[in-house]
């Protein structure tokens, strides 16, 4: 057995009913987006002067960033701590992170009132280092660049003979073939291959550092609003909570998407990689639990746990079902070895533990004092968020079909290089 599993494009038809569904959802969201650009944020959202942030920030941006944490956590495991065993999951995690951050940017283009000024943070004359959002913006921009650079070797490997162009992309076959036959083009590819091989370690470390910085700063955003936040979530240590929960969600997210992809492509889940990976999950969730529980105790916020209010109930769902339950289940070896058990635990932590946490922190915990009614997302906001997620899944589907991202299915022969 070779020590690095080979990655190959997925050889499945691209135009499936699922893909058409995604395209349909994207079309609906696109319609609302056009409306938003023509008539303003007020026309499609339920945002107001009391609730300036809605699900585009809570889900698209905050949860999007958190759930992309698989990228830096697997890259640290496989490349920095050199656990070669895990190489098979690095590429899909990297792709998810790259797409996740790309769509964070896209969502901001919809959410920002003056989206055409989105580039302002790169102007040194406007730098404002006191702002946690400034750090988030800079790190996200830098990290997105790093992610694209980290992806270049996969593109190169594709160009060097592992490219797959299923219909309807097959129309590109001719032009791509002729481009690949050009001597100068092959020279560039070879040069890039060698160059990136030499310096990639710099980007890999930078990716981890940048992730730690902005994952935590994202939590710092709400530290500014102590008087508007529910005490079950508000803590000056929100920065630390976001970092720990982001680190903890990295591997569950990899498990979640890997098993989902396996199902979608009719493959066996790679339990020999995911099983050992799952063993690490309780350790990281445990760290988060220790921090969160200590924080609740030290601040005395635990008294609100059973208030019976919407907020305290949301907290119980998030922490009880999303954090404690998967933690205890994953301590059991039997659960970790069962594909179904592992998938459920990972999904619980990903969706209830972290996605709900981000929504809770940014939307549910936020209680502006003069609000007359609570914020509920408008149909347009939901449609655009759904469209963003659909577009992300579609891009993932297309890219794993074209480029060598996912590990080759067991027992498959590698196709001849061309």
């Amino acid at each position, binding site marked *: 057995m070779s*020590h690095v599993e080979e990655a190959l494009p997925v050889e499945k038809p691209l135009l499936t009913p699922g893909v058409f569904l995604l395209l349909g959802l994207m079309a609906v969201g696109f319609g609302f987006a056009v409306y*938003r*650009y*023509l*008539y*303003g*944020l*007020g*026309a499609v*959202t339920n*945002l*107001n*002067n*009391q609730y*300036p*942030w809605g699900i585009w920030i809570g889900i698209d941006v905050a949860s999007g960033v958190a759930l992309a944490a698989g990228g830096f956590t697997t890259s640290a495991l496989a490349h*920095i*701590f*050199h656990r*070669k065993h895990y190489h098979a999951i690095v590429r899909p995690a990297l792709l998810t992170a790259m797409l996740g951050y790309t769509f964070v940017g896209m969502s901001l283009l919809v959410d*920002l*009132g*003056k989206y055409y*000024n989105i580039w*302002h*943070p790169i*102007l040194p004359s406007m730098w*404002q*280092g*006191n*702002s*946690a*959002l*400034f*750090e988030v913006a800079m790190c996200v921009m830098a990290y997105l660049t790093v992610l694209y650079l980290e992806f270049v070797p996969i593109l190169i490997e594709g160009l060097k003979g592992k490219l797959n162009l299923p219909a309807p992309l097959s129309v590109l076959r001719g032009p791509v073939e002729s481009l690949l036959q050009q001597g100068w083009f092959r020279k560039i590819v070879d040069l890039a291959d060698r160059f990136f091989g030499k310096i990639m*370690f710099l980007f890999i*470390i930078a990716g*981890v*550092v940048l992730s*730690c*910085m902005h994952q935590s700063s994202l939590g*710092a*955003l*709400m*530290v*500014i*609003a*102590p*008087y*508007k936040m529910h005490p079950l979530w508000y*803590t*000056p*240590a929100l*920065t*630390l909570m976001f970092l720990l929960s982001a680190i903890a969600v990295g591997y569950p997210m990899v498990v979640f998407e890997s098993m989902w992809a396996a199902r979608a492509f009719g493959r066996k889940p790679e339990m020999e990689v995911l099983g050992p990976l799952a063993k690490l999950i309780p350790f990281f969730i445990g760290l988060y639990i220790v921090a969160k529980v200590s924080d609740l105790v*030290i*601040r005395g916020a635990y008294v609100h746990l059973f208030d019976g209010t919407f907020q305290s109930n949301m907290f119980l769902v998030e922490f009880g079902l999303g954090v404690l339950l998967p933690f205890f289940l994953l301590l059991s070896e039997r659960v970790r070895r069962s594909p179904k058990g592992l998938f459920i635990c990972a999904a619980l932590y990903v969706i209830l533990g972290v996605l709900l946490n981000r929504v809770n922190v940014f939307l549910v915990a936020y209680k*502006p*004092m*003069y609000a007359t009614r609570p914020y509920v997302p408008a149909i347009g906001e939901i449609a655009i968020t759904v469209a963003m997620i659909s577009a992300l899944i579609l891009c993932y589907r297309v890219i794993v079909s074209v480029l060598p991202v996912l590990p080759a299915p067991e027992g498959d022969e590698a196709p001849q290089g061309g």
Partner: protein
Amino acid sequence: MGINRRDLFKLALAGGGAAVLDPSPNVWSSTAAPLDPDRWGMLVDTTRCIGCRNCEWACKEQNQLPSAPLAQFSDAAVFESLRRPDPTSYTVVNRFAGPDGAGRPVYVKVQCMHCDHPACVSVCLVGAFHKEAIGPVEYDAWKCMGCRYCMVACPFQIPAYEYANAFNPVVRKCTFCFERVTREGKLPACAHICPEEVMTFGRRSDLLKAARERIARHPKKYIPHIYGEHEIGGTAWLYLASVPFEQLGFPVLGHTPVNKVNETVQHAIFKHFVPPIALYSFLGAMMWIHRDQDE
């Protein structure tokens, strides 16, 4: 010079969640806001206000906001519901029940408080807000990206957004008539028109003295609290009232500026970039140490 022990300590405190317990809030000062000791203030004596709303009209005239003839502002029906500043009204007057719920109602004018340590200035990532040393908190629309973080941050919930504007939506709030006062030497429009001298414009330090004197002279009329003297580190606008401020729609706030924790953490992280560089070096070392662990 690298990061010093004090910074590390501050980072540890903030990270551990203890920074907010710092017993000396007044020692801290945001680097974003150098303050003039002679900076402006505005003392609002709510016991004098009759709810004529002339100030609302004058404000709209001054700032060229959509308005109506002055006569229409005497309509008391607007007091039926609590109003907040919006993109077309930088200030609004609300009515509350008087002392013991009886007698004359209390009218309260609301607008930007022009904080000494403004949260909006601290959070704006492109520096669209700035605090003039002389007092006003000003906004540069051309820098703004429209992220609306200022609205999340403001403890008084003041900045209002032009949600209906598709192409150039901006944040709107009271300017303290900065231009009018500095260029034309006039009083802020609201203070200028007020028939009851509810507002006194002057040096903040002088106004605090005057407010304390008024409370001392009429201990039965005023509650012994100058709202804005210490709230979140102090505000340029100061209020006197006959009933506790929480009954007049004011948020109950502590004395520590809300941006203190954030800025302490940010400064600790970005001072000479020591934590990121240390993490980078550590990870580099780990990569080197584990390089031969390939199976």
